[in-house]
């Protein structure tokens, strides 16, 4: 088992949090895991992305040339990364902000309106958590409850106060996906 996931979106969409949360949770399940952020000037201004590898074997390079899972939170990210997705790979796209569909036919695609899900909960910043929920469902490697526990451990005091709504969003995202 080896998941090579790229998360991408706008700065402010919580892309890095998605990645680190997944990495922490995978660690808690004793997987081999690496997290690799975009850094330096690439982090500046508009966009953000990070790479997470979750594997049974030790991870070679944490840099993902060709992901088998791609999570995109906005349209520029879809445009930028879709070509790199492996044949047969999985795309998760935030259909609240991404109006078009990926052109490729050799991949599995899921369009989840995570901003809408989040707004239903009254906080559009929860879109990323909803997306994590969807991802968990699709990956079927890390459980929702592990992620919940991880959140308790890793969230800052400020975030802990809003942990419930985070988890709620995640659950909604989880159930939004039909496999």
């Amino acid at each position, binding site marked *: 088992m080896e998941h090579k996931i790229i998360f991408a979106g*706008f700065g402010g969409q919580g892309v890095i949090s998605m990645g680190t949360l997944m990495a922490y949770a995978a660690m808690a399940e004793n997987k081999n895991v690496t997290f690799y952020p975009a850094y330096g000037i690439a982090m500046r*201004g*508009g*966009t953000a992305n990070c790479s997470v590898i979750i594997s049974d074997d030790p991870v070679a390079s944490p840099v993902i040339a060709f992901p088998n899972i791609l999570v995109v939170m*906005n*349209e*520029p990210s879809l445009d930028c990364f879709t070509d790199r997705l492996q044949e047969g790979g999985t795309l998760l796209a935030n259909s609240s*902000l991404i109006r078009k569909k990926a052109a490729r036919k050799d991949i599995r695609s899921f369009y989840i309106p995570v901003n809408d899900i989040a707004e239903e909960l009254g906080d559009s910043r929860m879109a990323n958590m909803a997306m994590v929920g969807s991802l968990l469902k699709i990956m079927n490697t890390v459980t929702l409850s592990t992620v919940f526990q991880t959140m308790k451990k890793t969230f800052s005091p400020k975030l802990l106060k809003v942990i419930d709504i985070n988890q709620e969003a995640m659950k909604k995202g989880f159930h939004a996906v039909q496999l």
Partner: protein
Amino acid sequence: MVKKGKIEVRIEHCKGCGLCLTTCKLNAIALSTADVTNSSGYPYVIMINENCTGCTMCAIMCPDQAIDVYREQEHS
């Protein structure tokens, strides 16, 4: 008499920083809403009324040279 003016915004160059807005004493411009963005994902500047006098202040302030300004000329 106050002259009439207008601006042209290079939408793809605008980063929605909003600095031009702060200089426009006549509130002639505003940013598009978050879901109306250019292809880089930025909201951009639009004229929201006819107040513009072509004073060029907004253009002077723009870090991205996104604004050109036009002004009615005196007839000589």
